[in-house]
């Protein structure tokens, strides 16, 4: 997806320094691609076509190559997402423990019409994801960088309120 606003480069100033520091860990520039894409997402919230072109130029790769890598990994957003990005595990162990009820409750409380859609107030995007690697703490939910354990459907109104009001930190 293209960025509708006039594009401002990501890799200037501090983010550029962070990338240069990261590149020292690897023998090739190409190996800096995943970390570079993380920097883009941290700075912009998602990875636009323009950001792909810029990243490609910085790492001496082609834009087509970078796009191929971006689309392989599910955590890179190719579209803008809500202020709070909610990822709910629904794979078998969590599924046994009621994860689908957690998904329904999140959709209801946030007002998101469907999975992947952003709520009308722009505050939430809810996603079902495969195994988050915390099966003993079913159901784990990742909201932005906050990893929540033992989430059950009844706890969701309070969780959503906290993030909607911005009192999560």
């Amino acid at each position, binding site marked *: 997806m293209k960025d509708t606003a006039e594009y401002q480069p990501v890799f200037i100033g501090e983010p550029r320094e962070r990338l240069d520091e990261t590149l020292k*860990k*690897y*023998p*090739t520039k*190409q*190996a*800096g*691609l*995943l*970390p570079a*894409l*993380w920097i883009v997402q941290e700075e912009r919230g998602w990875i636009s076509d323009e950001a792909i072109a810029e990243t490609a130029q910085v*790492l001496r790769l082609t834009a087509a190559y970078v796009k*191929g*890598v971006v689309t*392989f*990994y*599910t*955590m*890179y957003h190719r579209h803008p997402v809500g202020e709070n990005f909610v*990822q709910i595990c*629904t*794979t*078998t*162990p969590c*599924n*046994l*423990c009621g994860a689908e009820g957690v998904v329904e409750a999140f959709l209801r409380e946030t007002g998101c019409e469907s999975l992947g859609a952003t709520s009308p107030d722009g505050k939430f995007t809810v996603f079902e*994801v*495969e*195994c*988050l*690697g*915390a*099966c*003993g*703490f*079913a159901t784990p939910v*990742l909201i932005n*960088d*906050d*990893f929540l354990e033992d989430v059950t459907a009844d706890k969701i109104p309070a969780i959503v309120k906290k993030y909607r009001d911005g009192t999560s930190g």
Partner: protein
Amino acid sequence: MGYPHEPHPNETILLSRYFGDADARSYKGWTKRGGYKALEKALGMERSEVTEVVKESGLRGRGGAGFPTGLKWAFMPEKNSKPHYLCCNADESEPGTFKDREIMRWTPHALIEGCAIAQYAISAEITYIYIRGEFTEPLKIMQEALDEAYAKGVLGNNAMGTGNKLDMYIHRGAGAYICGEETAMMNSIEGKRGNPRIKPPFPAAYGVFGMPTTINNVETLVAVPHIVLEGAEWYKAMSLSNPKSTGTKLYSVCGHVKQPGNYEVTMGFPLGELVHELAGGMRDGRTLKACIPGGSSVPILNKEETESCLLDYEGCVEKGTMLGSGGVIVFDDSADMVYQIMRLARFYAHESCAQCTQCREGTAWTTRILERILAGKGAMKDLDLLLNLADQMTGKTICVLSDSCAAPVVSGIEKFRDEFAAYINGKREPVMVQD
């Protein structure tokens, strides 16, 4: 220990001793608990001696394949002009498994120490710890521990004051189950799509950046310092059954049990006791129906098999399954096996890297056929079709993702055929709407 529960007397607690003890996370807390003594000892030994003691201990890879660790290290060529690498596999993504997460959350320095010893043994100057992107907390804790280890001189150009160069970096994944496969992981570190590579060449000859590389799982590496300190005989003695399986293993018990958590027991421990005693057994009024003992990629066991299975590499094979990563998924009599097997198939269809036709098409069609059965639109011949597909998906692809999708389907149809038949014969209400 049975984190987040109290330790059980039948556990043998070695790797999980400090789970829940936040004080063990810091360098100071770790050294107070005897940390970095093993690294000091290892750096005073010949590299080959370190490999030898690990080989002698019988330690086998805890990530799933169970390959002898010392032997893997011994495959690394003699050090010449080429750089060597160690990759630590912390991409824990196998449904049912959550042990590496706890190791990194509570004892990050244990992992650094294990990596450093392995790195020394294989003459690698750099370790990449590949942590899955979703593990925000372990990522933060590991980075803080690494920063501290550098500041204290454990790592760097003069590690522990011995003149050895040991560098260690975290590489954050970005959401791809397949990157837990070692060759896919190396591609991902190189900045590529996480597609598995054809073997040979094996990583010890041509690994990350085309250089000799060893890839070990988190749990394997944290066992190494104990072996270096206490010796191979001591480690080998921790086994209830077969001398081919030694030491302790962490089992992540989840699903329908009262106390899900990580339990550490010696090799050869009875699976039935793990489920019914250590993990608290079934919820009230429920009975055991099935269990997947080694993460979602291994065949499902029924109640009788579960209760008579011994947990080691050989014991699981005897029951027609595998020890895998030790992710124990428990199903009670309320579980809809057809639906849960469809969920597993959907997982693999989602995670297929799509390089191999058998996997790309096989995982997707398996899921669709299972969805059709769940929608009440299946036919008995669909079961034969699923088994035929599974056969085409087994042993025919670059990696084993496709085999992993087939395993629960084949064992599920074999052991729970009645449940499939109930949907097909209209004896059970459809649970899915198919458009």
